[in-house]
């Protein structure tokens, strides 16, 4: 008989096992909600799936009574723009400073301890300073994401650069490469997939800082809406928003992984044709 560790579920079984925990959560929710609603039909803490459904319809497919906007889409667009700016700037900073730190000892001696110290400051604790310097508009929200995630990406890429075998760097130099050429031809191509990895891992933190920023001062955004309607316990709006955020984050993570596999198959142990090497 095959050992348990060698037995694999079939493709249908795999789908079932994947969906099972999700279904159980929905089921447990539906039962708990039903019990609460049978005691108080107006209970808002655990609204029924039907009222969640009608809240989704209201937020996503009907124009708002007050502004005429389709709120879910307006909020999503606003949040994604802030997130794209924040993550984009963080990634760029991470790439530039991370490589400079990793390759050039003078820069490393100068910046590396500073970046380490910066990365250890909890950004939420210095919010008032960020506000006064960057104002309360879009800029401060993007800055909060950058402050929260860029130091992490920089540190990660710096250590990835330092992991590049010194033989490679020496070989390139014996072939006559300058510092700039080593960065461009040896370091950069090996670091880019690691950058995508670091960005993937920091997406969770980026969302956290985005929502925190929107909770503090905003006129739109996914985090804004959640914290606004929390004022009257509208869980029928909050729960689908949370599910939507989770879905968006999952799609981003998945897309980054696919891009990485497509562009850098060697990094994932694959040949150019996408089969295992």
């Amino acid at each position, binding site marked *: 008989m095959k050992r348990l560790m060698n037995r694999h579920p079939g493709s249908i079984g795999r789908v079932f096992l994947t969906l099972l925990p999700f279904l159980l959560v929905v089921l447990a929710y539906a039962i*708990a909600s039903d019990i609460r609603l049978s005691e108080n039909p107006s209970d*808002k803490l655990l609204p029924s799936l039907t009222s969640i*459904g009608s809240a989704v319809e209201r937020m996503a497919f009907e124009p708002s009574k007050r502004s005429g906007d389709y709120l879910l889409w307006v909020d999503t667009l606003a949040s994604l723009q802030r997130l794209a700016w924040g993550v984009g700037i963080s990634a760029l900073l991470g790439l530039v400073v991370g490589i400079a730190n990793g390759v050039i000892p003078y820069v490393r001696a100068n910046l590396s301890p500073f970046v380490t110290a910066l990365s250890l400051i909890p950004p939420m604790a210095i919010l008032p300073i960020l506000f006064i310097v960057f104002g*309360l508009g879009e800029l401060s929200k993007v800055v909060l994401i950058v402050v929260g995630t860029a130091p992490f990406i920089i540190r990660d890429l710096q250590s990835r650069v330092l992991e590049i075998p010194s033989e490679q760097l020496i070989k390139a130099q014996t072939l006559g490469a300058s510092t700039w050429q080593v960065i461009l031809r040896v370091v950069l191509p090996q670091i880019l997939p690691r950058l995508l990895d670091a960005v993937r891992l920091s997406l969770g933190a980026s969302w956290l800082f985005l929502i925190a920023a929107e909770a503090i*001062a905003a006129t739109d955004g996914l985090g804004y809406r959640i914290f606004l309607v929390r004022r009257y316990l509208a869980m029928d709006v909050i729960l689908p928003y949370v599910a939507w955020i989770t879905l968006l984050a999952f799609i981003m993570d998945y897309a980054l992984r696919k891009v990485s596999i497509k562009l850098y198959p060697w990094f994932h142990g694959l040949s150019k044709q996408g089969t295992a090497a």
Partner: protein
Amino acid sequence: MKKNSFTHVLSLFPKLLALTLVIGLAAPSPALAKDKFRVAWSIYVGWMPWGYGDNAGIVKKWADKYDIEIEVVQINDYVESINQYTAGAFDGCVMTNMDALTIPAASGVDSTALIVGDFSNGNDAVILKGKPSLKDIAGQKINLVELSVSHYLLARALESVGLAEKDVTVVNTSDADMVSAYATAGVTAVTTWNPLVSEILAMPNSHKVFDSSQIPGEIIDMMVVNTKTLAENPKLGKALTGAWYEIMSVMSGTDEAGIAARTAMADASGTDLAGYNAQLASTLMFYQPAEAVKFVNSDALPATMKNVAAFSFDHGLLGEGAQDANFIGIETPAGVVGDNGNIKLRFDPSYMKMAADGKL
């Protein structure tokens, strides 16, 4: 709201499952006569007495008198404390009249305003940077906690100069960050409450252009308890009310005990005695139960609640089921506001009356 067949099937789903499955997620059903009660409070000038009364043993003394236990819990986040009360984690909670209508009452939790402690008499204010008159507010961005009493105050302020909310842009801003937000160049107008108001007015070029003393008696701070719990346990109402007015008589005194009590409350709210006295000056405290009873019995209360209900309905705070501002019934001694068949918020002066008559 139209129901498509998919959501209809979804709605049947849990009912079938609830029959076949027993899961420990059920909300615990409250025992009929429980002896232990929990009430929540959060930091605000008019609610600091609860913390003091708990620490000084006054609440325990009154609970012992009626042979019950009362746990007084401080919650750092005001809205969260109301949400917890609404979800059933507390038997009572301090809140304003507007939040009592829009959170527990709108969630179907029948609630009673047991003790009306005070009303804001200047504690909430509209502040402009560099502009001395309320009329200058037109076209500005105003930072405030959206859907809170600040928002209500702003709506009343705009009304008073013939403007409407569409003439301004409201920016939802966390109260914790209001003072630092005001210090930034982009912020030119805020609406908020004390102690933030005094912090902000202390900054240069700040003008208070409207405050709650211009709408006296409309922003009311009270201890709200679950109506069903109160009906089953009148002892809870008696103990809380008795404790409250004992605290009031201590803190309103000019003697050493009164000063010590106010100093303790000042410390707990992060200010000093002078700061706390200044906040008390813009709060109309009902130190005597008879004053509170008179206020609750007045004709002004239903008129105020009518305004509050209209504002709440306009901003979608009464829930999707509400067809108009009269959806939720509010019972006051001078008459019912809204739907008589759906009363979810009750102003009940009977316990304060007992205190006034010395019957506790």
